[in-house]
């Protein structure tokens, strides 16, 4: 159980690093994927990550703005990503205290539900606006995103795991 595991006390997060990782995820989504379906929505994943780990620094407003940028860059229905991302951010902030008590794979399961929920919201909005059904492969993106959760957790927490100063008494 949780009490048996050693826990690392993390350094406070730097806002610049949060902005940089969000920007990188945005760029990943903007890569010219020609006809690849089932790609994970990295921006949604990173938004979920920061909402869970830093619910006071990342929130619904930022997610909404990022979603709007995604819409404009994708030529999608304006407001579609903004809608899904703001609901995703809300759910992630509300669940943040619960999720972090679990191990890494149960956390990924929570994230799977969050990402899938966001995708289903977009699906329902677009189908009601007269879009074509993209196929079930598209929903696989959430599964891949959830599988990437441990990787993302490892990568995005690296700066907070660095010791402030290393000396003989404190090797790590």
């Amino acid at each position: 159980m949780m009490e048996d595991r050693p826990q690392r006390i993390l350094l406070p997060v730097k806002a610049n690093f949060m902005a940089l990782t969000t920007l990188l995820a945005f760029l990943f989504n903007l890569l010219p994927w020609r006809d690849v379906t089932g790609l994970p929505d990295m921006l949604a994943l990173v938004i979920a990550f920061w909402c869970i780990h830093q619910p006071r620094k990342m929130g619904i407003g930022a997610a909404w703005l990022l979603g709007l940028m995604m819409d404009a860059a994708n030529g999608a229905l304006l407001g579609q990503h903004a809608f899904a991302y703001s609901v995703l951010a809300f759910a992630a902030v509300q669940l943040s205290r619960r999720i972090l008590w679990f191990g890494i794979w149960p956390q990924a399961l929570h994230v799977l539900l969050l990402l899938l929920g966001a995708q289903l919201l977009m699906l329902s909005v677009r189908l009601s606006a007269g879009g074509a059904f993209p196929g079930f492969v598209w929903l696989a993106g959430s599964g891949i995103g959830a599988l990437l959760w441990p990787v993302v957790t490892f990568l995005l927490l690296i700066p907070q795991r660095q010791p402030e100063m290393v000396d003989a008494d404190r090797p790590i």
Partner: protein
Amino acid sequence: MDHQPPAFFNRGPAPLVRLMFFVVLALLLMVLDARFRYTETLRAGLALLAYPFQRIAMAPVQLATGVVGFFSSQVQLQRENDALREKQLRAAKDLVTLEALAAENAQLRRLAEARERLPRKSTLAEILYAGRDPFSRKVIIDKGRMDGIQPGLPVVDDVGVIGQVTRVYPLLAEVTLITDKDQAIPVQIVRNGLRAVAFGAGDGATLDLRFMAANADILNGDVLVTSGIDGTYPPGIPVAKVVRIERDAAYAFAKIACVPAAGTNQHNQVLVLAADDKLPPAPQVEPAQERPVKGKRAKRRE
């Protein structure tokens, strides 16, 4: 006044209130965008903001393609060269006859005092990437308003029609492919001149000929070309080939599936044809006569 919590604990409005605010804002935007198209300025501004990021994201891919292209083998180039030369030889013969035919046609047209069909001006554009929106079939080309691209212009490749420009940004333009759901294009069957309208089927690969009577004279393998009666597409450009016909006595219309002639997701270079400026002005739409409306269906038909 004294009951306010100290600023230290103040976290702004409750999360649920904030969520409701942003969700309502998003829904409002979506309705304005989908139903009324009021958001084009906002979209253009945001797209311009996102443009540098798109360029940055595209750079590594372009570099990789460049490197791969540089190292593509000599043999492959040689083979391609041979194939092209053979094709050119074969085409040269056709070209000679075509030139003669074109001259003859022009002569006949002048005789008949028909309006001469001038070749339209065209802009060569490159497909930057396929649209990332999984709900529609679109590609983004690298020419925009700065290059005189306007919404509604037809886009063709060397084989046939690809689609139509639907949204123009300052530096980019968005082309909706003919395979996009409900994208319509007026066509004509080469064999017998029958006119129809082809719609994208929504699966990204085929088109449907809708509203054709079950006994319409259409065969498998019929070639569809643009009919040109819409004034948007020039007439006679190949569009698609009929591949499957289902005639069911239970329905008034036949189900006819076609495969697009142009490689809607293969090529990189496309031509954007300029608008035909010799068209007569569009007829004035008469305001619909006031009629007692019965039921929902009648209302929708108006």
